[in-house]
Each structure stands twice: as C-alpha cells, then as structure tokens.
C-alpha cells in the first residue's frame, strides 16, 4: 500500500496482544507482517484467493467474526477481532490437513529438486505429525509429464493448490492449465494435453509450493542451499525486473523474480529467467578475456592492456574519414557518463558518438516485457548522450564507406545490432571492438574484453525513469578492465595524445 493512501486502522487482539491492524486488510497478510507463522499452500498474495488447501486456519474468538476456526486467507480485518494462531484446535486442524496432504504424497524428497525450499516440507516440519497412520497404498499418478520445452510436471507430488492455474487464468489472462476429473482422481493437466506456451511459464515453477512443476533448465543442477543469491536487475528489456541471481561455483544456475510492487510484482518473463547461458561463458565458449591487436600477419594477437589502449587512442584520433563511437544500451549510468566525457574530447565535426537505440522489437506485451530490448536507453539519454538508431547508423556508414573508423563498446551491442549493420561495419573501414564476444566481429583491428552486467556494479534507469542498482553476481576474470576504468584510461590516453598534438602545432607556429 502506498504511503500517501490513508489506511484506517483498528485495534485487534492477536494471541492476546493488541495490534493496530489495517481495517479491511487481509488477515493472513497482517499476521505474517507481525511475524506469526501461518502455514499455507494455496494462498499467494499475487493471486486471487482460492481458500482450498485449508491450511491457514486460525481460531477466532471475537464477536465480530464467527467464532471457531476460520481460514485466514479469506478473512478481512474487522473491528473487534480476537485471533488465536497457536491454540490447540488450530494446531490440530493444521496437523490434520498435513496428514491428508501427505497421505498420497510420494515423499521422494531425496530425489526431488524442491527439497530444501518446499512449502510442504516446511509445513510438515512446522505443524505436521512425526508419523503416518495410513495403512493404505499411495495413489499413483503420471510422473515426468512433459509440459513443453520449459517445464516438467509430476502429478504425484502435486497437492492441487491450483496456484499455477490461477496464474494463467488471472495474471497472463490466457488459461492453460486445469484440474481434470474430481475428488481423489483430480489431476493437473493442460488443456487438450497441449504444451504450455508463452513467455511467463517459469513463474508457475516459483509458485508451485511442492516439486510438482520443475524447470527443465534447473532440474538436478543443484540443491537450493548450495546457491549463492545476489539481488540484482534483469537487463533483457527496459522494464528492469528485480531479480535474484543464484550462483554456484561461478556459474549462474537460476534466475528468479524478486518482489517489487512498482516494477514487476512477483513475476518475470522467461526470457529474463532462462537466457543466462551467455554469462556463464568462458574463453572456451568464445568469450573475449584479453586485449588483442591485429598483427602484421593479419591475425589478432594478445597484447598488453595499456598497449591496446594506446593503439585505440591512436586510431580514434584520425583526420581521415568519419569516427563512429557507439555505446551499448546495456551500459550503466556510470559508464554512460565516462563515455560521454571521453567523446567530448574528440572533434565533433568528424565524429558521430552516442549510444545505440535499438529498434522496437515487437516482443512487448501487456504484462512486463517492453519493446525495447536493452535496459538503459532512458538512462543514457539522460546523461546527454545522443541516441543513434539503426537508420542513422546505416546512412552514416553508407556515406563513409571504406573510410570510417568504428568503435563499438560494451556488452550486448553485438547481439543488438542487426545483420545489415554488421555487414556495413565490415565494409566501413576499420573496426575497434570492445565487447563480450568476438564472434560477430572477427575482422576487428583491436579487440578489448568487456564485463557482463552480471559482473558489475552500477545503475540502470528503466523505461519509466526508475533508478535501480545492479549488483555483481559473478566475478569477472582478472584480465578484464572494468568498462568505466577502460573509458578513463582511454580518456587519459586521448587527452595526452591531443595535448601533444596541440603542443606540436604550437611549436610549429612559433618556429
């Protein structure tokens, strides 16, 4: 709730202690806010209430609501409430629900990916019994059911909380899952057994309180307690979804959304969630980790960083032809400012400098994904850098065919530039490249390694102007200079070169 809204409060009793509670608020939310543990399965704050798991029961003593056990996810706060969260009937009811849910659950925790972050485990530990009373055989349902390219379903583990169903029904608005049959034969299925589709499937895996829905990408990769979480921002589009990046042994294994009511709520798209393989790439997979300079044999050779920077400065200060300096829209604010300072030393007559403004991709939707395939266009515009779009770039390259110098800098630019531009760059003149992978530009004269957004600190400003902090989830190889440091070094090199040119010119005039 935003602070500007005035919320009426009322005094209610919780376990005998008086609290100021928001009138009309949801009881379970308030109980959790004040630190009570209310076990639940079907309730999720981002979804409509279903009230079918019956696990979140508390006891009401007040006259204002009906006395006895009430389901706290359905109850709104009214005056005079008197709630017990730990009473004997409450504990018996919770243990009862646990017993029913575990009766036919396969209890295959040792081989279940969810173990360690499973609500059923937690609640069994918190409220369940230490033994089962059932003498009956467990019911069997399909296992490892393929729900398309991203998700597998295990119907035996499913406790039918229907969060995933409600997610598709109410969040994306396109129903894809349903419960077939009824009673104990109830089974979660897709409509007509068709595979799931869409860009938001991954969220149902986060929502699943048990190991019924698992992401193929993460299956059997790691126990969740071995993962190192980093709170950062997704860069797949200009929405800037808040994420948790989970890393084990220097590799990203999973990315999940982090709640931010104002940006992404509880969700994120599959593109941001699953397209992280590039960040895990090392030299073997084609990552550029050292500075390289074109040798006389026409091949790129390893070079010292400072030599490469000097050569870069030399190439940029040229009188022949146009110089095009293009910054990636994945750059942070800090990099944008450093780049801006760098290009301001150059003679504007001869130079086209700015950040690349990607073309509207058409991938946007009503939920989160925007049409801008890069995270920081708005921020870079605010630093005063010029936005250079595809058309502008194409004409400039065309006009200066064979005689221009192109400096591409920053992570992500090689993926963003369309193939036609890449072809034109090849024919442009000389290419100076600073990026993550050389794959698209083997014809570079100088190649410098850049950091990925998973390796750096900094700010991005999303499409609605929200400044969000980026934290490093991975450690960059030691041979790579931070992008900001590179621009600073390059600035120094350029400055020295330009000053010496001025000095030379001055000396010449005196002579």
């Amino acid at each position: 709730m935003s602070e500007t809204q005035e919320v009426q409060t009322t005094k209610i009793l919780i376990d005998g202690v008086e609290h100021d509670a928001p009138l009309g608020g949801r009881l379970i939310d308030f109980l959790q806010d004040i630190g009570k543990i209310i076990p639940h399965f079907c309730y999720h704050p981002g979804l409509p209430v279903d009230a079918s798991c019956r696990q979140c029961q508390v006891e009401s003593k007040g006259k204002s609501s009906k006395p006895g056990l009430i389901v706290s996810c359905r109850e709104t706060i009214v005056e005079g409430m008197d709630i017990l969260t730990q009473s004997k009937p409450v504990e018996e009811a919770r243990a009862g629900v646990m017993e029913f849910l575990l009766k036919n659950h396969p209890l295959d925790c040792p081989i279940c990916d969810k173990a360690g972050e499973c609500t059923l485990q937690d609640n069994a530990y918190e409220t369940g019994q230490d033994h089962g009373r059932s003498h009956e055989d467990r019911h069997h349902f399909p296992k490892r059911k393929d729900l398309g390219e991203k998700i597998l379903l295990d119907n035996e583990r499913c406790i039918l909380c229907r969060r995933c169903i409600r997610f598709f029904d109410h969040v994306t608005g396109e129903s894809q899952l349903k419960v077939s049959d009824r009673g104990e034969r109830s089974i979660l299925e897709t409509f007509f057994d068709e595979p799931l589709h869409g860009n938001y499937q991954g969220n149902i895996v986060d929502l699943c309180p048990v190991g019924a829905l698992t992401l193929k990408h993460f299956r059997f990769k790691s126990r969740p307690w071995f993962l190192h979480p980093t709170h950062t921002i997704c860069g797949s589009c200009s929405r800037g979804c808040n994420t948790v990046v989970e890393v084990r042994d220097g590799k990203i294994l999973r990315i999940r959304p982090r709640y931010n009511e104002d940006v992404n709520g509880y969700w994120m798209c599959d593109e941001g969630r699953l397209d992280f393989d590039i960040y895990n790439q090392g030299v073997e997979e084609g990552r550029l980790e050292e500075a390289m300079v074109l040798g006389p044999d026409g091949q790129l050779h390893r070079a010292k960083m400072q030599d490469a920077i000097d050569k870069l400065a030399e190439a940029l200060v040229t009188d022949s032809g146009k110089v095009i300096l293009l910054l990636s829209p994945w750059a942070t604010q800090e990099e944008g400012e450093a780049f801006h300072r760098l290009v301001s030393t150059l003679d504007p007559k001869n130079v086209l400098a700015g950040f690349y403004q990607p073309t509207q991709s058409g991938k946007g939707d009503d939920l989160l994904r925007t049409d801008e395939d890069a995270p920081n266009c708005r921020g870079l515009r605010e630093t005063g850098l010029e936005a250079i779009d595809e058309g502008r770039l194409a004409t400039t390259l065309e006009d200066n065919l064979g005689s221009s110098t192109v400096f591409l800098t920053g992570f992500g630019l090689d993926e963003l530039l369309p193939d036609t531009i890449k072809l034109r760059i090849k024919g442009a003149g000389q290419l100076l490249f600073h990026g993550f992978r050389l794959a698209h530009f083997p014809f570079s004269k100088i190649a410098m390694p850049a950091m990925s957004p998973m390796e750096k600190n900094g700010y991005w400003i999303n499409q609605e102007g929200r400044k969000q902090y980026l934290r490093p989830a991975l450690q960059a190889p030691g041979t790579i200079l931070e992008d900001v440091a590179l621009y600073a070094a390059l600035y120094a090199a350029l400055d020295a070169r330009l000053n010496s040119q001025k000095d030379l010119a001055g000396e010449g005039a005196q002579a």
Partner: protein
Amino acid sequence: MSASTNYSWPPRETQPDHETYLFNRVAIENSHLLDVARQHGAYGVLEESLSNKKPGEVTALVKDSGLRGRGGAGFPCGFKWTFMPKFDDPRPRYLAVNADESEPGTCKDRVLIREDPHLLIEGILLACYAMQCQGAYIFIRGEYKNECMVLQKAIEDAYAAGLIGKDIMGKGFDCDVHLTRGAGAYICGEETALMEAIEGKRGHPRPKPPFPAGFGLWGQPTTVNNVETLCNVPFIVEKGPDWFKSMGTEASAGNVLSGISGHVKTPGVFEVPLGITLRELIYGEAYGGGIRDDKQLLAFLPGGSSSGFLPATELDTPLTHDDLKSKGSMLGTASVIVLDEDADIIQATRILTEFYMDESCGQCSQCREGTSWLSEILERLEHGKGHPDDIETMLELCLQMKGKTICVLSDAAAWPIELAIKHFRPAFEKAITAATEEAVR
C-alpha cells in the same frame, strides 16, 4: 385447485387419511400437459396474486407459513427470500432452482417435475414475483433426461401461452425461465456449485460469505430454492399460512415428500405430514408396508445418504427437523433407505463413503484425501483386513473433515461413518478382531 386427492407415487387406489396437496395432480392422466394442468387449477394462484397481491405480501405469506426448505438443509424459505436486497437496488436479481436431485435414495423432485411441471413453474413465477426476479434458472440433474424434456416442453408451452416472458398474463410482470442441464456431478446440488455450473463453469462450491443473496449468479443477488419447496408456494399463497401450519408440527409445518426405498415391501414416494414416525413410514400399510420377507430391520437412513444410519431402536422418532437432529441425524431430503438384517453395515457404510469419494469436487484437502482414505479403510474392513487402530483413525479423520471445508460435502461424508460407528460399533470391532486373529494364526 382441483378437488382430487392423491398421496403416493406410483398412485394407489387407497385414499390418504391426511390432507394432501403436492401430489394431487400427479395421478391425473397427462397432468404434465398445460391444458390438463390448467383444467385442474394450474396458474390460478399466479393470476390472482399478480392481480391482487403486492410482492411483499407473497413473501409475508410464505414467511408466516413457516415453510422450511425441502432440499436438505431445512432453512426457512420466506426468511431466505427476505435476504434479497431491497427493490430499489438497481442490480438484476435471479432465482436459481435446484433440480439437481442427486442424494442417494431421493427421487421426489423427479416425480413433481415429470408429472406436474406446471406446478413447479407456477411456484417459480410466484417466487420471482415475490422477490421481483428478472429470471429463473432451473438446474436439472443431467441424468434426468426425460424430466428435462418434459420440463422444457412445459416451459415452451407456458411461454406460448403468455405465462412466462414479457407481461405475464397481461399483468405487467416480466420473468424468464431458463433450463440448464447438469453433467452428472452430485456437488452441483450444493447451492454455490450450482450457480457456478449454471454460469458454465466447473461445479466447484464457492467459499461463503459472500452469500448468494448478495453475490450469486453472475455476481448478482440470487436466491436458490429446491423444487419441492417452490411447489409448496402456490398452495400457501392460495390457502394461507394457517392452513399450512395445520399440517405437520409447529417447527416443521406442512407436508413433505418422503421416498422409501431399500428392503421394504412397497417402495415409493409419499406425501406425508411432517411429524409422522419412521415406524409408520416403514411399516405402515399405506407406505413402506414393512420389511420384505418379514425380516428384521437392521438400520435405516431417515433423510438421504448424508443423514447416517439409525438403528431399529430409533423407529419411533418423528420425521421432523429437530427430532432427527437431536438423534445426530437429520431430516435432509426425508428419503428413507431401509436395510434388513441380512445387510452388512460395514459394506453399506463403505458404499456410501465411496459415493462421497467419487463425488467430492477435490478442492479442499480434507475432503479430497479424507473421503478416499475413509473408503479405503472401510473396504479393508469389509474384506476382513482391519487394523486395530482403524475405528480410532476413522473417527479422527471424520473430526478433521467436519466444519473445516468450503462446503458441507466433507461433513456429509463424515456423518454416516460417525453414526454407523456410534450405533453399530460391535460390528466394526468384530471385523477387526476377526482380522487380527486371522493375522496371528
């Protein structure tokens, strides 16, 4: 109304020794046709009420009569009508008619719908007039194919005769009647699941509150009434509350349709005044006629499957809401199922529980898992594979299933087991002892 009397289906030659009204027309040949029904008084009360009575007066008559719902819960009908918002509320309002008669042993609405559909339509229109509903939605059980066809024809005939639709009988009241056929789920007889089903969704009960009178069909104010309840309405409006209260008992007024099935000589559906004893119903010549082959009575269900088994010692219980409630049972649909001494009470309980397992919608954890667990235990017991802790486990499971779920199907599944164990515990214990002895040997 017609002067003929009849109290039984199938009709009998014998005349009843009490006043009857609900079944009077069903014995007449072709009573389901509009012309025949009108010759015998159908729609007379409607015309009179539309001309001379205000909506509130109709509600008051029904309220004063003490008519209680005949669908199972026994909620006072007129009182329920007064929950609807005031007439200045701009929202549309509906009547939902529960013709999803699926309780095992119950087939009373079926006779009314098939033999006297115009009585039902008249009752519906009177209720709609009293509550000023724009439309009535009848939800009929999917298995009632013939009844559905009869009722559909009756509705069409009534439309053609200007008895439904715009400006009914030229009295300026508009009301539509729609017929929706179910797809074979017991749970759709639960009022909120019924509304979901009418809306075309899966028949899952909705959590209450909100109650239907505030948020019903398509989110609009709605009252849900049973077929038999509505069939009482024209008579109450015609003859007045005092006449109605002269039948039955003080707290349970009027006549009720009671179906008697199972091990009796002459099963059937009978119109009886509330307060009649179960002994009379089961043994009376005019009704069940006694146990077949003159055997001993073992147990009976007094009001449909959810009401639970009562033993022969409870035969003198009067058929009223309160008397049966005090025995831990309920009047329910007043449909009596009789078991003779040859029946196995464990098997009978297992069959009932299996029914609930099959019909649970599967929403709530307790009901979905509990009904199947209970029937698995009972099946083991039935086949001589009991465990010493089975009775205790079943009672605890029943306790966990009662009063903790969205609707009362879970409770309804637990009651018969609790009552069976209460009254027939030795039978259960014998099954368990036999099984343990077998295991030891």
